[in-house]
């Protein structure tokens, strides 16, 4: 064949591979504003930075499928986000529902291997129907398709993984979302182990897709999704923002950004966020917003375990993970969902060298029958165990209440590298009102109850604990941001160039 013919043949094959599932299927997606797999890549990556791997891959199972499987339904390659190389897999639902096949399984394996070994963040754009049928059927199908890569399900957080749930996600897309450090979901997308159709066949009951895997389920009940957005474009922007706080891999410190003008402007009035009465609640997110660099707060799981706020942010240009009690919900009392959320967040920050800042205002853990049934002891010790294994800097500021075991879980004593408190802090083993009942057997209304509560409250101020240096600094609310900026500098892990030990790198993403 002459070189001209070879080049023509190449071009024809290239155009065919880029055509995805054909104009009709692509048009159907375009109408409701859903991006196709290649458009998603274009929105995610820096312009002209994508270099594809496996453009000419197709089904290798049935000869008749070769022409019907451009790129075999999973588009893979490398590109840059804000100038940094990443590896990406974008599922093309227009090609056999982006079902998992032998060829596209190899493509995912290659992306993960290169990302892990060369230190690139990994991005999964999910929309897949599960294993390709009938390729996987029978023992031959199983032998060919499954279990041939012993590292397929091994994750040790060498590099950050981010996932988007952008359509129907069953099988592969669900698993990789579950493995990821960050998951964003577009409203209308569904994530579940199996499709409602298969579930209905199995349990002989009609199953509603939103109920079995919609955004409300995953943002409010399971906590498997970190953010919910309205469009594909917003989902891709969220992935970019998430990665901006993280290093490209676990052996480097997170990038340092310029401090935006206006950062710290809200600090002067920050003390006014605290209500006059110790029994009243407030939204700690107002305090986080004031302390962090302007517009840098990126909250994770805002609708799940709301009694704690977990947010990536920057303080003085440095990435931090903020873990804060939020009295607005349940008075800040820690429930089992909050324990899971805190544990997950601590593991994320520690795995990628992000210092942890804790803001404390909690009356303790929620107790009761429901808490015990939800395995509260296990959740509490997971949270505590995670905090104890952290090797990145831990800086804690007690804003108001810190009681009992929650004092320890929220960085009390030597569970932080620096343990500071506002003068408004009250620290003890138990709320004075409960302690009056336990110690004196008195209830509200009993003679001597008020005096007993006052007696119990007297020793709870910050001054006693500061006098014995169990609190290192008493910080005025307005000075909190400058205190944290300085302490982040002091503790920036010079001996290891900002890299921690990652003792929880094999911990899962859910608990």
């Amino acid at each position, binding site marked *: 064949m002459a070189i001209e013919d070879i080049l023509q043949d190449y071009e024809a094959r290239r155009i065919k591979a880029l055509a995805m599932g054909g104009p009709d299927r692509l048009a159907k997606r375009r109408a409701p504003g859903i991006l196709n797999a290649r458009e998603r890549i274009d929105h995610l990556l820096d312009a002209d930075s994508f270099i594809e791997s496996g453009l000419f891959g197709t089904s290798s199972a049935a000869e008749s499928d070769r022409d019907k499987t451009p790129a075999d339904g999973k588009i893979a390659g490398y590109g840059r986000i804000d100038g940094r190389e990443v590896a990406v897999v974008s599922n093309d639902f227009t090609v056999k529902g982006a079902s998992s096949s032998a060829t596209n399984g190899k493509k995912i394996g290659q992306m993960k291997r290169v990302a892990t070994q060369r230190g690139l963040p990994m991005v999964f754009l999910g929309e897949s129907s599960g294993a390709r049928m009938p390729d996987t059927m029978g023992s031959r199908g199983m032998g060919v398709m499954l279990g041939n890569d012993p590292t397929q399900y091994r994750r040790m957080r060498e590099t950050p993984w981010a996932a988007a749930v952008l359509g129907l996600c069953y099988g592969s897309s669900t698993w990789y979302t579950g493995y990821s450090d960050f998951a964003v979901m577009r409203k209308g997308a569904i994530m579940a182990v199996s499709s409602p159709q298969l579930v209905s066949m199995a349990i002989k009951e009609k199953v509603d897709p939103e109920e079995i895997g919609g955004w409300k389920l995953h943002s409010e009940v399971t906590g498997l999704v970190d953010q919910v957005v309205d469009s594909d474009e917003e989902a891709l922007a969220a992935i970019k923002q998430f990665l901006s706080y993280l290093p490209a891999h676990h052996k480097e410190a997170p990038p340092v950004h310029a401090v935006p003008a206006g950062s710290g402007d809200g600090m002067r009035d920050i003390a006014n966020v605290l209500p006059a*009465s110790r*029994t*009243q*609640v407030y939204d700690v997110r107002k305090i986080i917003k004031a302390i962090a660099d302007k517009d840098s707060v990126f909250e994770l799981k805002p609708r799940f375990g*709301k009694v704690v706020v977990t947010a990536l942010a920057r303080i003085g240009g440095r990435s931090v993970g903020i873990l804060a009690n939020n*009295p*607005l*919900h*349940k*008075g*800040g*009392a820690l429930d089992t969902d909050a324990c899971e959320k805190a544990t997950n967040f601590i593991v994320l920050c520690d795995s990628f060298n992000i210092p942890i800042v804790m803001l404390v205002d909690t*009356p*303790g853990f*929620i107790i*009761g029958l*429901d808490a015990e049934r939800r395995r509260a002891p296990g959740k509490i010790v997971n949270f505590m165990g995670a905090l104890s294994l952290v090797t990145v800097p831990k800086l804690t500021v007690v804003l108001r209440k810190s009681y009992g075991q929650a004092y320890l879980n929220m960085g009390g004593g030597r569970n932080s590298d620096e343990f500071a408190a506002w003068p408004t802090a009250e620290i003890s083993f138990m*709320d004075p*009102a*409960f302690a009056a009942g336990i110690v004196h057997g008195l209830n509200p209304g009993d003679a001597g109850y008020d005096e007993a509560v006052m007696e119990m409250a007297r020793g709870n101020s910050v001054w006693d604990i500061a006098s014995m240096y169990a609190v290192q600094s008493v910080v005025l609310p307005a000075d909190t941001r400058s205190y944290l900026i300085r302490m982040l500098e002091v503790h920036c892990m010079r001996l290891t160039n900002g890299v921690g030990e990652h003792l929880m790198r094999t911990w899962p993403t859910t608990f």
Partner: protein
Amino acid sequence: MAIVKLLTEVTGSVWKIYLKPGDAVAAGDEVMIIESMKMEIPVIAEESGTLKEISVAEGDPVSEGQTVATLTT
């Protein structure tokens, strides 16, 4: 028009009820206060609308997830 249930997120007792059926409610408004863990925890309307029904009275014990009011949006 939709009916939205307002739930208490904590087990405790109803301390104060601020609004009555027929009152206009804006997103973010506190409808009532539940006392739990010695804290005053508000039940907040997440959407704007009109309060249709209050299903508890001050002093009533409530459980986590219980419907305490309904809103017409």
